[in-house]
């Protein structure tokens, strides 16, 4: 029997029982929708972590009081009790870490920034000690950055993030104007290029000033972060060790004592994310597999009902010359079509779910062709595997008994 004939029989049979068909494949719909959504979220997060969070740059690590990611309140409390990382540490590191290619420092806190009667609240005000600027893709759009000499002289200069510039100045040129951070005046020397947002947090609601100026205004009680760039990937470990030794000596740690500071690199972030995404993926796959098996059993059950209902039809077809394989394929195609129908609906709903996630959360979920293809292969196999038993049963029916069936 040609495939087209089998498909048209199958589709007609499914269409004749629309509601039943939909209910039958509910398991598939949910499973595929979840797999599509989970894969979209994980993939979105992956590219996000790679592009944005890991924007540290490949050979950069940061010396700071605690790790980038703090997972418990206890850990936070412990870290807050640690000694601060200070500008003196920075100077010592600059003197002693010989293998680094460049070393910077920054501190930051949220403040209100004003220009005349306009203001922006919760601006990420960063005191920066060049030459390293994070994130690695930071670029000046207009004007300039402050110089080494200006940093050393604690000049009250500012570089605005694009969002702050837009809100305070609209279309006017901010360069040369004077803005106020809380009550202190700063002269704008430059505006950064737009950088977009990371997990819903704008990277452009920022104001950069020399670290020395920052400390003049906000004091030296904050702990600074010291980004250090190694010459290359190979020397990263050696450079890290050097920085660690300097910090341990400064903190007078005994050999058996743990570090009371953190050395963080982009790997710390990606490793952490890999752990989470693997856990999510494993849990989701387990649930999806379970619902696919349940869905498959439901499909098998409905196919058995369908075979029984159509016993007479099978008898007629056999009397007219249908061979076993004709009947087998007819019902296999039907169960595959049924399962795939569920898969297609699941893909559509998953696609919708991605759009909702994208709109409602900062997660950049996007549908990937790979997950769609994977989903369709899976539902095809579910239809095939769970269709074998009913289809085989139909194929083996005795034509006389089938014809006599009421």
């Amino acid at each position: 029997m040609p495939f087209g004939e089998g498909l048209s029989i199958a589709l007609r049979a499914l269409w004749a029982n629309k509601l039943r068909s939909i209910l039958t494949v509910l398991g598939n719909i949910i499973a595929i929708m979840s797999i599509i959504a989970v894969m979209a979220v994980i993939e979105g997060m992956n590219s996000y972590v790679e592009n944005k969070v890991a924007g540290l740059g490949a050979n950069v690590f940061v010396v700071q009081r605690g790790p980038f990611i703090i997972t418990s309140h206890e850990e936070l409390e412990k870290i807050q009790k640690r000694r601060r990382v200070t500008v003196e540490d920075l100077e010592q590191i600059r003197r002693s870490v010989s293998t680094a290619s460049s070393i910077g420092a920054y501190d930051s806190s949220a403040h209100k920034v004003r220009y005349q009667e306009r203001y922006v609240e919760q601006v990420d005000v960063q005191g920066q000690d060049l030459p390293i600027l994070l994130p690695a893709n930071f670029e000046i759009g207009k004007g300039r950055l402050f110089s080494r000499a200006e940093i050393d002289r604690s000049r009250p200069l500012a570089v605005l993030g694009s969002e702050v510039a837009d809100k305070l100045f609209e279309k006017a040129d901010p360069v040369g104007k004077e803005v106020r951070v809380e009550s202190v005046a700063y002269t704008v020397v430059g505006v950064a290029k737009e950088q977009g947002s990371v997990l819903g947090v704008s990277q452009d609601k920022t104001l950069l000033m020399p670290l020395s100026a920052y400390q003049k205004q906000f004091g030296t009680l904050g702990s600074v972060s010291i980004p250090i760039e190694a010459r290359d990937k190979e020397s990263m470990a050696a450079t890290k060790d050097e920085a660690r030794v300097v910090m341990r000596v400064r903190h007078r740690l005994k050999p058996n004592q743990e570090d009371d500071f953190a050395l963080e690199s982009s790997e710390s972030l990606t490793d952490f994310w890999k752990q989470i995404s693997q856990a999510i993926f494993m849990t989701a796959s387990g649930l999806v597999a379970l619902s696919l098996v349940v869905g498959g059993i439901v499909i098998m059950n409905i196919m058995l009902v369908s075979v029984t209902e159509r016993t007479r039809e099978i008898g007629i077809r056999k009397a007219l010359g249908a061979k076993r394989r004709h009947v087998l394929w007819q019902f296999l195609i039907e169960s595959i079509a049924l399962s795939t129908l569920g898969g297609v609906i699941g893909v559509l709903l998953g696609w919708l779910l991605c759009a909702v996630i994208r709109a409602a959360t900062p997660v950049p979920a996007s549908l990937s062709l790979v997950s769609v293809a994977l989903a369709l292969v899976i539902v095809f196999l579910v239809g095939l595997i769970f269709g074998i038993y009913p289809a085989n049963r139909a194929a083996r029916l005795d034509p006389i008994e089938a014809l006599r069936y009421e």
Partner: protein
Amino acid sequence: MLIRTAELTKRYEVGGEEIYALRDVNLSVERNEYMAITGPSGSGKSTLMNLLGCLDTPTRGTYYLNNQEVSQLPDDRLAEIRNKEIGFVFQTFNLLPRATALHNVELPLVYSGITKEERKVRAVQALQSVEMGDRAAHRPNELSGGQRQRVAIARALVNRPSLLLADEPTGNLDSKTGEEILRLFEKLHAEGQTILVVTHEKKVAERAHRVVSIMDGRVASDLRQKG
């Protein structure tokens, strides 16, 4: 010789008891015969027809159809023979309810792997030959009993079988419609078709040229009338 059976026997076992539905039937049928099989209920008519129609295999004995021994062939070979050599007409029509008349008639051609275009041409021809050409797009529930049986006959003939097998073809029809079907059989016979009708109605049996009556699974009489 189209059909030749020797000691054709069908035995069933029900609850440890042996039932002979058919016992040592020797029967020969020439091409272009019009034959009726009659007998009381339970005598074995349907059993014989199932065997001759290759829907079933005998417990014992031989069956030559077109000089080919077919009594012990595997399922799929029998399906092939049913498809090419035999056209069935049933008392309850046995049309697929969801399919149109045209599609019902196309079915045997589907299973012999004929292309869509040719299938359609031949199915339309078959429907026209039973005067149902204008009902091709109708579904069975939109047709009268007599019309349904005509569609079933078109389906039985569409693959040009050697043998038309009809089991109580008029059993579900009123006498006027039944008469139309019998006249159609006569016309087909005149065109060269071999026809075998199972019936317990005397009036139906009388129209055939040869009447075989079965009693308790055996041939009780074999009479030629007319021609």
